[in-house]
């Protein structure tokens, strides 16, 4: 049988395979439902393709280990779920501050606390944004099907390298555990961004935090040609701690602006029937599967309904949402939490009183029928 690029995979396996496609060379993790299969698959595959897998003693150390490994020049990732994601937050802040590329996949389950380990949720949207302390910006991507999971995973590695930042992949239990068809892209079909390495020769002073003209910061593999310092403290261009107000101010603005000023480059989304949509669904992740289903279904009976599927959640694409919602009378955010993206949408649109939440928070996937029932209420047609 010829080697077909078509696979029938579980979402956690897609994540593993896509990460390898993107150039993953180092994975550190700790088992947690519903993300564990990614670690299992990578423990098998990584040593077979010249990479490294290590099972750490907890999520704190997993996050620290991928930062250390990334610094040595390896593309690095961890995968976890809500409770583990909470434990990683301090070190995610370190990666933000020290500007170390890495990818963190959070396969969402019900929370808070141990919550619903085997059930779906989208309750970590704000944890992805603000989980670590202090002002910062962060990139967070998501997807609603396995093909897009593959693409977004590769994009996550690309964005991490481009912006020297941790990137969060916010998947969920339904996506991670279901199986569906995915076509593995050919080599180079999705462009891969490799580490930008400094051209400063060995023996010459290298400044790890001195930007090029285009604002990017070339790296030097830690332990290699150049000796420099890395710290989680505010630092100067040498990577040395400082509390000089002008240096601190400049670094804070750099860390936030390098992402917030490039929303249009980072935003990924899909749109369906926006032009004539009186009712516009905004959704993401596995909830977007049901939203799209009911949209197609209602259009068949003549409803002017469209959909905006968000794949970049952070930085939140405010201008995009404002633009796409300007003609809609009913803006319905479909998500499996108490309104975490709804609040962002409300802050982005021209008329916030036209924003509605269609949600489900009982550990079950929101169904097309659930959304249909919300629409009946929103449209004033009773239950």
């Amino acid at each position, binding site marked *: 049988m010829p080697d077909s690029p078509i696979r029938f995979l579980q979402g956690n396996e897609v994540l593993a395979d896509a990460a390898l496609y993107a150039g993953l060379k*180092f994975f*550190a993790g700790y088992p947690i439902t519903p993300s564990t299969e990614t670690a299992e698959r990578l423990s098998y595959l990584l*040593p*077979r*393709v*010249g990479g*490294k897998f*290590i099972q*750490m*003693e*907890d999520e*704190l*150390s*997993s996050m*620290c*280990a*991928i*930062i*250390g*490994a*990334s*610094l*040595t*020049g*390896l593309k*690095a990732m961890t995968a976890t779920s809500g409770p583990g994601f909470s434990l990683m937050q*301090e*070190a995610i802040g*370190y990666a933000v501050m020290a500007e170390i590329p890495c990818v963190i996949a959070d396969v969402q389950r019900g929370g808070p606390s141990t919550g619903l380990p085997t059930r779906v949720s989208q309750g970590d949207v704000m944890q992805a944004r603000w989980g670590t302390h202090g002002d910062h910006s962060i990139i967070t991507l998501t997807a609603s099907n396995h093909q897009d999971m593959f693409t977004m995973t590769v994009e996550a590695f690309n964005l991490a390298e481009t912006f020297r930042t941790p990137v969060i992949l916010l998947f969920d239990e339904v996506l991670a555990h279901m199986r569906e068809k995915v076509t593995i892209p050919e080599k180079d079909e999705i462009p891969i961004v490799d580490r930008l390495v400094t051209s400063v020769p060995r023996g010459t002073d290298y400044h790890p935090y001195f930007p090029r003209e285009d604002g990017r910061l070339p790296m030097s*593999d*830690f*332990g*290699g*040609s150049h*000796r*420099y*310092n*890395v*710290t*989680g*403290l505010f630092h100067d261009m040498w990577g*040395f*701690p400082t509390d000089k107000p002008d240096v601190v101010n400049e670094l804070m603005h750099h860390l936030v602006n390098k992402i917030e000023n490039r929303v249009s480059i980072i935003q990924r989304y899909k749109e369906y029937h926006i032009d004539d949509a009186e009712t516009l669904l905004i959704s993401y992740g596995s909830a977007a599967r049901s939203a799209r289903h009911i949209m197609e279904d209602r259009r068949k009976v003549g409803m002017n309904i469209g959909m905006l599927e968000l794949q970049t959640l952070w930085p939140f694409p405010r201008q995009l949402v404002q633009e796409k919602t300007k003609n809609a009378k009913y803006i319905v955010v479909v998500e499996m939490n108490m309104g975490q993206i709804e609040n962002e949408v409300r802050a982005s649109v021209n008329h916030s009183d036209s924003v509605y939440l269609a949600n489900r928070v009982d550990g079950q996937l929101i169904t097309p029928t659930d959304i249909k029932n919300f629409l009946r209420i929103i449209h004033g047609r009773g239950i």
Partner: protein
Amino acid sequence: MSSMTQYLRTRFMPHIWCPGCGHGIVLSGLLRAIDALGLEKNDIVIVSGIGCSSRLQGYVDFHTMHTLHGRALAFATGVKFGRPELKIIVPMGDGDALAIGGNHFIHAARRNIDLTAIVMNNNIYGMTGGQFSPMTDTGKKATTAPDGTIDRPFDTVSIATAAGATFIARTTTYHVHQMIQILKKAIVHRGFSVVEILSQCPTYYGRKNNAGSAVDMMNWFKDNTYKLGTKTAEEAGEMKALGIFIEKDEPEYCDRYKTIIQKVGSP
């Protein structure tokens, strides 16, 4: 012996340590050990956590990484596993290594990954102003134990032994020649090595416990320690043994992974 200043980033000095602090003696001993071994600066990585001890990393001209409180060994594991050819030295304080970082300490030891952990034990949290640590003896005073701590202290050597470290030693800032010899062996040792160095904090521990000046505290190290194997437990009493407790060859973690890669990796 060549000049130690070649290893220092003097333009980032003066250092932050208080007058009389033992940590500068540890820094000096470490540089002399590295110098005696003839190691290349480019082959050495220092990964530290947070605390007075962990500022050591900034003053030395190696590859240096200042990480999070308690997590130095976890970051160091990533660096070492990513690039096994490097010599990685991890200076930590007593809180860093055995309170917030205790879990990483025992698991790094269990894996026998080739890191040199230096526990600079001054029995106190210095950076935050003198709170008791898991190494503070019961009854001693600290800013969070104004009536004396009721906690029992850890023994670094016992924990490292139970966790499986393959090189374990203890010395003090008084015994600098022994310190240099031990550090040399610990750095060369292939596997997880632990060197506990008793270090004085006259500013907080000393003042809170009427331990006198830095010199008095170092004399206390001299008078209350003995060479391992020269006293019975009965004779030793409360005195602490100094020397190398364990030094054994066991498979190292990165080497073991290499054998897996050789077995299953693509040619």
